[in-house]
């Protein structure tokens, strides 16, 4: 062959346009709801309008009599076969959880819970008939307010005897990772700074654009299930375990999936019901939710009260952090509901060197939709808390919020660093990211403008918000998950198949739903095997093709799945070497692999990998004892998490006369390690930013006093539009991770994690001259206006930790225990 010495440009780092796009921009898509099969029946759910009620009777005759209705099934009809939906993360040995049937049998525990299913020949006929199912309810008092529920005033599940599902603690003194937080607090109370705050993480809804949909075809020997899911492998496992179908008889396909953000990391009642009905009737069945059903009954996210105590010396060096969380589980424990706040437990210390830390979390049931993973899952909540607190500390000390952070953060020469929460951060450079962010933002100029506006008493005030963050990505080392009582591992699987024509099929156990795996993974394999980017085909999302995998969530696909891919590709090369040696009549030890070519050291002889693939396919001239295949598998279990970080800066303008709030500028510098595709990374950051900003400014799942979700449509649940948002200044520093070969860290959640506190810090920064130290999220104009004017003429004193300005967690000090909290949220909402 001709030997080309010219090196092909590496694919990693290139802004390759996505392979996925062609079908998506031309409408040649395969969403689950597009699937139509012969004789297919359609399901409609009858859902409880009550948050908590006993089902006393269900009358289905009228619905059954409707044209083209095949059957109506209630919980009692399927009680024997529907099983109980899974919780894969019992965080403590004595965790309490109610049984979770897909169709409620005798009691409903949240508004939106399924009580019956109608099966008809068309979706419209099924929905018409669903309206005619007559359910008698005996209302029970609902547990709605999280704090009241934690006091067991009303029980969400009377049979449990308590609303408390579990209590989980991490204490640095007990763990040997730091000192006693109580001693640090005592010392600060005597002679230092003690900051006590209580923050609300409002309830959010993932609000992926594609409503969930599931199709089950029981026609063949094997059940084939298509689902709009992030986790086809989990769905397969749970169909087997919950419904008693042999796992080998189940094939699950996640075709094109329209976003997830954690909201499709679930085994849903609707999936279970569709499988149960299809098996019973022997006909293909489809269920597609309406948007209202999606918002009401797809799992929610966040929903915590956070009580925080930060102890510091007078110069602003943090000596300890104590965290007390109340976490709302909602009515049931979904797949990882109980573990979400625990994922935050290791992140409250952020990028800082805290000598003492304690995390306490009480998981509480209420009669609301259950919560579970939503972009960031536990880590945005933690980052919000610490980044708000560090800014409060800066205000107390009277220095710039970036200065207080620098005083406390881990310096770049101190990596690897063992944190007070017991993690080992491998790499990072917070100084570099912060410096770059300041420069791109024009930090000093904006601070000067802020001062001018304050001095001039400009009715439109400028606020500058700062947030740094790090997160644990790449879920996860299996041994760590095991030690946290999570039921599954955290490995990922990949295969590389060398086809006879030189094309390469890559199979990954990750399951993309917008992330661009087909493109990014092609870039990785193209470099690793020295084949053209266009020759790599990435296959995923079908348990019959990608038979092994743990799917996509937690910024894991690249750091874990990508590393599995590297290992599988490397095995291909190793398998090819003896074959190349044989064909080139050389010793294996003399074979060198470089950029797709197997050469013989010291000669110009060589064969391309495609030639080896063809020779292996033919297997005519093969070394003795060598198996005629290059195809390779790898299952990679990460040794550590990866720790992306970044510095985010936000400028908000607030009209103090109206409470109107406008974003002026947003700059973030993220260090996500090696970047495979800068365009895809920028896209992940943009989208993440807007979701985090939306928590700060717009989104909230609001329930009324009877437990009805008020924000159950896009009219009321404020997913931001193009007109609400601005263009962002996104940039990077690169400190490669040393926990994987490629040096990647994960980017899926970064933007969401850091933006929320950056925005709220900016809002509070603008209002601090008015004595405001907190505005509850979402920071609506109404809340901002009331926060400003609640203090008209009041003596604010600029001392945020005394009097009504803040809650006091010392049991001995009962003065103004809740007043501070109320004074910052005047709208009277219980949420």
């Amino acid at each position: 062959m001709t030997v080309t010495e010219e090196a092909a440009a590496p694919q990693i780092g290139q802004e390759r346009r996505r392979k996925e796009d062609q079908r998506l921009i031309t409408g040649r898509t395969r969403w689950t709801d597009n699937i139509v099969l012969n004789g297919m029946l359609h399901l409609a759910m009858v859902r409880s309008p009550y948050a908590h009620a006993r089902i006393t009777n269900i009358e289905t005759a009228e619905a059954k009599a409707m044209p083209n209705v095949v059957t109506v099934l209630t919980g009692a009809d399927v009680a024997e076969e529907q099983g109980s939906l899974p919780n894969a993360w019992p965080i403590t040995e004595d965790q309490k959880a109610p049984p979770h049937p897909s169709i409620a049998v005798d009691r409903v525990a949240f508004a939106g819970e399924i009580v019956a299913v109608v099966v008809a020949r068309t979706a419209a006929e099924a929905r018409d008939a669903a309206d005619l199912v007559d359910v008698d309810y005996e209302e029970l008092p609902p547990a709605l307010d999280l704090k009241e529920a934690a006091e067991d005033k009303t029980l969400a599940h009377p049979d449990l005897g308590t609303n408390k599902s579990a209590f989980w603690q991490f204490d640095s003194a007990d763990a040997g990772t730091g000192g006693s937080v109580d001693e640090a607090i005592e010392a600060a109370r005597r002679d230092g700074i003690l900051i006590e705050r209580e923050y609300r993480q409002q309830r959010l809804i993932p609000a992926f654009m594609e409503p969930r949909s599931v199709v089950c075809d029981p026609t063949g020997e094997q059940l084939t299930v298509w689902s709009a899911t992030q986790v086809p492998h989990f769905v397969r496992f749970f169909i087997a375990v919950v419904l008693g179908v042999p796992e080998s008889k189940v094939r699950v396909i996640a075709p094109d999936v329209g976003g997830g953000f954690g909201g499709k990391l679930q085994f849903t009642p609707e999936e279970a019901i569709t499988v149960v009905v299809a098996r019973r009737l022997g006909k293909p069945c489809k269920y597609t939710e309406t948007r209202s059903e999606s918002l009401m009954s797809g799992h929610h996210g966040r929903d915590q009260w956070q009580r925080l105590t930060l102890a510091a010396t007078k110069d602003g060096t943090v000596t300890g952090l104590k965290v007390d969380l109340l976490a709302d589980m909602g009515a049931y424990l979904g797949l990882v509901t109980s573990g979400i706040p625990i994922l935050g437990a290791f992140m409250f210390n952020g990028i800082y060197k805290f000598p003492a830390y304690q995390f306490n979390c009480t998981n509480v049931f209420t009669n609301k939709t259950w919560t579970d993973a939503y972009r960031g899952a536990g880590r945005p909540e933690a980052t919000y808390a610490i980044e708000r607190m560090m800014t409060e500390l800066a205000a107390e000390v009277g220095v710039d919020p970036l200065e207080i952070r620098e005083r406390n953060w881990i310096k770049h020469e101190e990596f690897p660093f063992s944190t007070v929460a017991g993690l080992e951060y491998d790499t990072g450079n917070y100084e570099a990211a912060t410096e770059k962010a300041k420069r791109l933002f024009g930090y000093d100029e904006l601070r000067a403008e802020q001062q001018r506006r304050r001095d001039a008493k400009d009715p439109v005030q400028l606020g500058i918000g700062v947030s740094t963050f790090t997160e644990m990505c790449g879920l996860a080392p299996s041994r760590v998950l095991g030690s946290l009582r999570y039921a599954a591992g955290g490995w990922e699987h990949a295969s590389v198949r060398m086809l006879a024509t030189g094309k390469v099929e890559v199979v990954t156990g990750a399951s993309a739903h917008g992330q661009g795996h087909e493109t990014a993974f092609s870039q990785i394999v193209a470099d690793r095997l020295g084949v053209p980017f266009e020759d790599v085909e990435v296959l995923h999302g079908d348990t019959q093709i990608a038979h092994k995998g743990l799917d996509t969530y937690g910024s894991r696909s690249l750091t874990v799945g990508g590393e599995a891919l590297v290992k599988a590709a490397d095995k291909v090369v190793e398998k090819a070497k003896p074959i190349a040696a044989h064909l080139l009549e050389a010793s294996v030890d003399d074979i060198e692999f470089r950029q797709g070519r197997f050469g013989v050291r010291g000669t110009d002889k060589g064969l391309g990998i495609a030639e080896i693939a063809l020779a292996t396919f033919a297997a005519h001239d093969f070394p003795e004892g060598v198996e005629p295949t290059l195809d390779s598998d790898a299952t990679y279990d990460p040794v550590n998490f990866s720790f992306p970080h970044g510095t985010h800066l936000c400028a908000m303008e607030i009209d103090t006369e109206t409470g109107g709030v406008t974003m002026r500028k947003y700059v973030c510098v993220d260090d996500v390690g090696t970047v495979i595709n800068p365009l895809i990374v920028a896209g992940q950051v943009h989208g993440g930013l807007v979701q985090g900003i939306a928590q700060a400014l717009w989104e909230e799942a609001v329930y009324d006093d009877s437990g009805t979700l008020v924000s159950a449509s896009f009219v009321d649940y404020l997913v931001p539009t193009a007109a609400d948002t601005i263009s962002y200044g996104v940039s990077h520093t690169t400190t490669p991770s040393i926990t994987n070969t490629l040096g990647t860290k994960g980017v899926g959640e970064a933007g969401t994690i850091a933006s929320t506190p950056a925005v709220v810090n900016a809002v509070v920064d603008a209002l601090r001259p008015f004595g405001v130290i907190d505005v509850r999220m979402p920071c609506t104009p109404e809340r901002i206006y009331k926060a400003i004017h609640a203090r008209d003429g009041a003596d604010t004193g600029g001392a945020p930790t005394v009097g009504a300005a803040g809650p006091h967690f010392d049991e001995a000090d009962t003065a103004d225990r809740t007043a501070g909290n109320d004074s910052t949220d005047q709208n009277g909402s219980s949420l």
Partner: protein
Amino acid sequence: MTKITVTVDGASYTDDVEPRMLLVHYLRERLGKTGTVVGCDTSNCGACTVHLDGHSVKSCNVLAVQVDGGEVTTIEGLAHDGELHPMQSAFHECHALQCGFCTPGMIMQAIDVLNDNPKPTEKQIREGLEGNLCRCTGYHNIVRAVQTASGQESLPAAIEESA
């Protein structure tokens, strides 16, 4: 049932439809035009946006019987002979889509925005797309795509500068 005759993506169809049938359901279920999708039930999300007689409409907000005698263009009718519409190319080039579910509606609306105003400002683009929700992109690259398709300068996706 009502008989309608409608041209969709250049082909003529005659069908009996229920008076209550929405245009989006007619497109998806009767014509197999599944490129147009349903994202909500309150006409907020715009995922179902198509062109009716040259103007964008949310096809969940139009009855099939209303398009009798009309001409509908969906995302599937934009490319001709394998040649993408410039807006489709711009979305691809600017990475203006991730999961792609909102994309058909977003592209149809973006074309309508430029039909009304060939050189819109960033603010006009953002306001023109206000009726179409996207959960993945944060709109940054969608705005860039519309700027690109209109032949205007656009902001970068990210600030290229070595640390």
